[in-house]
């Protein structure tokens, strides 16, 4: 099982990204672990300069903006 982290200080796009990932995981019937990282110092530990950022198993896979459905499906399918 993969651990997803959505990085972002509570901006609207971060919330949308979080929901997008959980929704698609549900649709595909996959169980994933997902958490929000909202503290700026924790976010910066991943060296992400534009939020939302997405981290899978401690690797940054996405920076800035809401990811596309296609991207999210790929991330989860590989899980």
């Amino acid at each position, binding site marked *: 099982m993969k651990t997803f982290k959505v990085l972002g200080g509570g901006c609207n796009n971060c919330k949308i990204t979080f929901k997008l990932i959980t929704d698609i995981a549900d649709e595909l019937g996959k169980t994933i672990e997902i958490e929000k990282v909202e503290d700026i110092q924790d976010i910066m530990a991943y*060296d992400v300069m*534009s939020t939302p950022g997405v981290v899978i198993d401690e690797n940054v896979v996405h*920076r800035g903006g809401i990811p596309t459905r296609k991207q999210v499906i790929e991330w989860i399918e590989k899980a």
Partner: protein
Amino acid sequence: MFNKYPWPTFLFAIIVWILLYSNLVVFADFVVSVLPVDPESHLGQALAFFIYDAPKVVLLLSGVVFFMGIINSWFTPEKTRALLAGRPLGLANILAASLGVVTPFCSCSAVPLFIGFVQAGIPLGVTFSFLIAAPMVNEIALTLLFGLFGWKIALLYLTLGLFVAIIGGIVLGRLHLEKYLEQWVQDIPTKQLSYESVNLTFPDRLQLGYIAVKDIVGKVWIYILIGIGVGAFIHGYIPENFLAAFMGKDVWWSVPLAVIIGIPMYSSAAGVIPVVQALLAKGAALGTALAFMMSVVALSLPEMIILRKVLTLKLIGIFISIVASGILLVGLIFNLVL
């Protein structure tokens, strides 16, 4: 659509856009002619302003945001940082201000961006040059100025905006304000950061353009409608030359007043430009109107609240004063020369 058939969809979108844009006046003329109000009345003039401007601004904005969404995909904040790190001061400020124009920036990302620059050891003044230019001089402001006032004013705004960002950043850098950063920011160790570019195909970039339109137009349309609404009201109800008495170029205090009123206000450039257009039509001086626009777009209360996480109040105060002085200077010189 952009996923499955990138090129046909792209061409189709361009053709539809051109058709719509070239028929705007015909459409607006028709709508205005069937309105059940006297076209010479206050309400009639206000409505006409709204009907001519709203579709034009929305179309221009969608077009530009789409193309800039594509161009922006080459300029991520990480790449901008890599380009800035280690450059000599002065040159770095010029580069930072210019990159501020093309790097996608949302004030909600101001804090991670700021910290990212600090981590790379980029001097504070250079970071400020970027932070001043990014919200103030951007594709949205420039295209709308171009569409509504012509290329001269757009170019002027670009030049003056960059001037404020470059000089403001250099001055802020000279003041050695690092001690007024929040303590935890001062404690961040600088490190060597690697930069790997992301390879995107052209259809990927088209897709990003499309996402940018959905995202940005979806966010700013309300500002545009409010802005055009205010513009329409000024246009219909305020008498010709009425504003010349207190926003004209002979009124020395009009520029500082415009800047002070503009600072706390928050609007996208797309919202403030229709207001500027109406102010100009009623006799406001260009320098005063541009100074107002710059202070609305460059400095705002919400952005300062966000930056408070990394800057102490004192530094925020200095930052606002320097940027405001720059804008003030630009407005005054403008009114003097023109």
